[in-house]
Structures are given as C-alpha cells and as structure tokens.
C-alpha cells in the first residue's frame, strides 16, 4: 500500500480509509463514504492541505487518462489525476507547453487547480487557474457539476485554489501555450543586494517570460543579500529529439539530521555562488533543466530526515517590500537553518480563485528542516510581519499558520466556506477555519 503523506512530512496524519479511483464512471456515491472526504493526488503539497486525519482520502492519481487534445488550438482535456509530466510528454513534441508550471512536473492537474499553482511566468501569465477553461466537479449534494466562466461561475472560482474542498474534480480542460521547441534561452545574473534584485527583476519582467531568483539565505552580512536571478524565454531553436528530458536518476535518502546545518548550507551556497562567478551567464538548456532541477532526485524531501521540513512561502505588496528584508533579518537572527530561499516578483494579473495565493507583490519562499517548537515559533514571528504588511501565506505550503492569520490573509474564506462540499474536509481546513458542524 502506498504512503499518503505530504511533501514536507510534517505533520503526520493517518486517514481512516483510502479509496483509489481508477475510472470516472466507477467513482462511488460520495454520500456512502466515511466523512470527511478529501481528494489526494501526488502528495506534493508541503503541509496538511492534502491530509485528512481519520477521514477518507480519494486517491485520484488513477484518473490519469487524456480525453481530448486539439493540436491546432492547443486545448487539452484530461482526467484530474494526469500529471504535468504526462502532459509535457504528449504536447512538447508538437510544440505546445504548459501555460503555467510550478517547480515540479510531478503534480496532478487536480492538484494544480486546487492549489492554483503559479510559476516563474506569473508576471506575464498569472496563475494556472487563469488558463483553465472548464472542469467537472463531483459533489455529494449536487452530483456532477460542469463549471466554467459561463456556467456555475461561483463554483468555478471557489474551486480554483479551493484546496480540494469543493468536491472531486473529475476532469479539466485548459489552454496550452505555443512554443517552438523544448529549449529555453536562459540567463543567470548575479546580484549583491535586494535593491539590485528588485531593479533587475523590474527590468527583466518585460523582456523575459520567466524570472526567479535564488538567494543566499545564510549570509552573515545583513547588508548584502547575494543571489542569482534566472531569467529565460522559450528558445526559437527547434530541437529534433525532444525526448531528452531529465528524469529522476537519483533517489533521496533519509539523511542524518546533522547533514543539514548552517556550515554545510553556507558551504553549499558559497560553492554555488562561486560556480556562477561575477558575470552573467547565458545558455540554451532543456526546459526540464530550467523548470525542474529538483525533479532529478526522486523523493529529495528525505534529505531533511525523518522529522521532515517546513516551507514558508509568503508575499507582501510591492509597496511594502521591506517585509522581505524584515523576514530575512529574523531568519539570520534565529538558530534555524534556512536551506533554500527563492524570490519572485508577481505580476498584476488577478487570480480567479477566492483562496488563490498569488496577488500583486513580492513572494519569498524559505525552507527549514523541522526542529520542533523553535521552528514553529520562528514561523509564527514571520506571520506577525506578514500580517503587519498586509501580505499572505501560501496554503499549499503551510502546516502551521493560525486561524487568525489565515482569516486575515484570505478574507473571502467565509464566502468560500459556503461552497465546500458538505462531506469534505481536510486537516488544513479544520485548523484554519472556525469549526463548522458537519451536516449529517
């Protein structure tokens, strides 16, 4: 039997029952299942929004069939358990690409919708939900419901970023994006301060479809925030054999907790910056190398040891971007080890989803191995800053935010809760929403 845990391996949670789904036509009546119910895809969300302690998990990864693909228009319809990886295998050889992709290709379409994922092109393309045309939802109270901008628009919007709570997505249809081939023209530019990053990012966002920055988060010098900005565009150079995509060649192992410490991370970051050098570097690389560097290592989350890790992704509005500095200062002053930090400036495109995370602002992502109470305490301090600056924290990555924080970050949550399927629930939702009696 498969393990059903989240990517961060924190918190631990055990469903009472797992129901693997293989065929849309065989999905049982949801009213007959043990409540609460929650759909589960590939378990790539970090915190507890994919967990359902004591309830039923609907494993939708078996709903992995394509339904329709028009190579002329680039409209693809597929079942909810199809992974981005399978879609890329199908569409890249005929010069189409995902309109938006997160940092891993091993997520399902259902999961991409439920978390309204974003990518390095947010400043131009918005989030995944912006490219969604329609989907079918199975609900315990209404049966099958077709949702799009034209019909059942409220349920359509609630489901985008709706954390799987509004019903089981059976299939979805979305618009792909035209490309010339599988290659990306990429440039890596070194920066020394955050101000420099913001200038670089602003000047890159017009001419580059994809931008994201890696930040050296363990530097002792508070003034200097060294990092590397990655910017890229789809290359016009066609490549004959598009099959050369990197696939997982290594498997992560449970590392001893001492492996990840300030000195080792500092050494890694130093080497990483050294390899980059001072100058900018241009290259034309495969999209897999550009978008999914971590996909080369299957189960890389094991490196954080058995206790797991926490990823904290927040955003603050553009005009309050001192929030980023404040949180970096808190990180530097703490005893926690920040292993990875990624910075990105979002665009102004509004997400449709009521609980969607992306909005105009600057987003920073920080990884911390879980070290117990002290890690949680630091992240709670972060939340104070994010609340103060009117920002938000990404539910897909969260395992610990308080209900007060959540309700501040996502003011439309009460409106949203009217659209939750009466039989559905999740560990995340039980934590952040005021308890609501389950209708019997």
């Amino acid at each position, binding site marked *: 039997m498969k393990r059903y845990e989240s990517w961060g391996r924190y918190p631990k949670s055990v469903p009472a029952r797992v129901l*693997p789904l293989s065929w849309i*036509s065989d999905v049982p009546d949801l009213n007959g299942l043990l409540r609460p119910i929650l759909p589960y895809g590939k378990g790539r969300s970090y915190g507890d929004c994919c967990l359902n302690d004591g309830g039923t998990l609907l494993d939708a990864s078996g709903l992995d069939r394509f*339904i329709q693909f028009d190579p002329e228009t680039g409209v693809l319809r597929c*079942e909810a358990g199809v992974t981005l990886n399978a879609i890329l295998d199908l569409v890249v050889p005929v010069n189409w690409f995902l309109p938006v992709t997160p940092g891993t290709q091993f997520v399902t379409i259902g999961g991409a919708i439920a978390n309204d994922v974003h990518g390095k092109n947010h400043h131009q393309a918005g989030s995944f939900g912006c490219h969604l045309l329609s989907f079918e939802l199975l609900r315990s109270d209404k049966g099958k419901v077709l949702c799009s901008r034209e019909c059942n628009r409220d349920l359509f919007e609630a489901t985008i970023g709706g954390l799987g709570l509004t019903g089981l997505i059976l299939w979805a249809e979305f618009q792909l994006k035209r490309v010339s081939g599988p290659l990306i023209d990429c440039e890596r530019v070194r920066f020394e301060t955050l101000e420099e990053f913001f200038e670089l990012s602003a000047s890159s966002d017009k001419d580059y479809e994809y931008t994201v920055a890696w930040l050296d988060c363990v530097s002792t010098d508070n003034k200097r925030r060294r990092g590397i900005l990655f910017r890229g565009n789809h290359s016009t150079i066609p490549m004959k054999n598009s099959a050369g995509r990197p696939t997982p060649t290594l498997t992560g192992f449970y590392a001893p907790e001492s492996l990840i410490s300030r000195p080792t991370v500092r050494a890694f970051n130093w080497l990483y910056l050294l390899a980059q050098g001072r100058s900018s570097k241009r290259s034309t690389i495969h999209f897999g190398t550009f978008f999914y560097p971590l996909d080369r290592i299957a189960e890389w989350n094991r490196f954080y040891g058995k206790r797991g890790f926490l990823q904290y992704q927040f955003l603050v509005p553009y005009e309050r971007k001192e929030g980023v500095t404040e949180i970096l200062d808190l990180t530097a002053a703490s005893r926690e080890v920040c292993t990875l930090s990624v910075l990105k400036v979002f665009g102004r495109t509004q997400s449709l989803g009521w609980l969607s995370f992306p909005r105009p602002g600057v987003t920073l992502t920080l990884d911390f191995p879980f070290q117990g109470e002290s890690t949680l305490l630091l992240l709670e301090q972060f939340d104070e800053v994010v609340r103060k600056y009117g920002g938000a924290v990404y539910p897909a990555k969260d395992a610990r935010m308080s209900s007060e924080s959540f309700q501040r970050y996502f003011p439309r949550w009460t409106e949203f809760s009217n659209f939750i399927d009466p039989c559905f629930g999740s560990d995340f939702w039980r934590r952040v929403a005021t308890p609501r009696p389950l209708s019997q």
Partner: protein
Amino acid sequence: MTRRVLILGATSGIAREASRCFAAEHARLFLVAREKKNLQALSDDLRVRGAESVETFAADLTDDPSHPLIISRAFAVWEGLDAALIAHGTLPDQLLAESDPALLRNSIETNYFSVVSLLMRLAKAFEEQRFGVLAVIGSVAGDRGRRSNYVYGSAKAALATFVAGLRPRLAHAKVQVVLIKPGWVSTPMTEHLAQNFLFVSAERAGREVYKAMVSPRPIVYCPWYWKWIMGFIRFIPESIFAKLNL
C-alpha cells in the same frame, strides 16, 4: 505500416500501459474489456496519445462462447492482426479460495480456462495468417507453488505449460508466442497487498510487455531480476520449502 494489435483485458493496469506504448507508435488497437464506459475512457486516452485508430468490444472474457465473435471481429476490422495480448486475470484471496469452492472455480476459470480458450482460437487464426505475435501474461507465481497464493499460482503454472506446448506448434507458421511473467506490479489487482521494494509500477511493467511484443522472446521475466529470484526459490529442496511460509 502501423501495427494492428488486439488487447484482451484492456482495462487491466498492465494492458493499459502497454496499450499506451503502442499508441505512441501510432498503432491500431482493438480493445476488449467488460465495461463499456471504461472502454470509452480508454479509447479516448489512446487516441490522444497517438493511436491511429481504436476499436472497442465490450465482453466478459470468462464467457467463452463469446470468444469466436471477438476474434473474428478483431481479425476482420483491419484484415488481420500483427499481435495479440491476453492480459485479463484475477488475484483471489488465497485463504478465501481455500474455503470457498465458487471462488476457487472462478479463479481457475478466469486465470486459466478463459485464457487457453482464447489462445486456442487465436492460435488457429494466427496459424492461418502465418505471421504474428501472441503474448500472454503469466506470473512468477506459476514458477513454484507457494503457501500464500498457490491457487493463483497453479493456474499460471498450467498456463505456462500450455504456452510451452503451443509455441512449437505455432513456430512452423512463423507465429511467435511470448509468455510474460511479471513479479509484483502496483495495479488495482494488487492494491490490497502491502507494498515492498520489489513492486514496480504498472507503467514499467506495461513498457516491458510492449518491448517483449515488438521484439519477441519466448519467456520474459518482468523485471528481469525475477528470473534469478524464482530460480533460487525453485532450487530450494522440498523438505526445506515445506517449512517456509513464502
């Protein structure tokens, strides 16, 4: 020339993945399975994945009077077939099968009788055609009876013996017979079992079935290391084996 392939038990996990490999090379596929709705979903998927054409036929393969019709239809659509795969099967709970004669009968009928009934008819059709590949999914469980699943294993063992005799018969007609013996594969059939490191994905198993069919070999273990595992298990003397709880 695109391949024309008949898939019997097309909704099984391994068959589904093998079909996807055939679809990717633009083959023409004739799918047979019990559920009409599932066949529809399957054929849509295979068309999107590149299959040149997909025909479906809903039938319960344990109902052997339906076999002649299935086979004549499959051979008629594209005037012949290049390959056929028999992939349906059931994994009964061993302990239940020990006390429930109906389950015992059903297991032997599904895993053995319905398969050889199809094989006999396919053999005749391929023999007349004088070319083709006839592939059937056996199991490593058929290599030696084990306490934990000898009902299933015995049907697969009988099947292996049947295939061993069929192969030389068809060799004269230039028809190749392939027996694929998977180990543990993660499919809906094995969902209730506790997984261990020897489990492989249905995707991998399906790809190996596909490979075994496009460049045929008589017996293919899937993955290869089961040949050595089962070789070792067969080697254990009966006196010791009787004390093991494999």
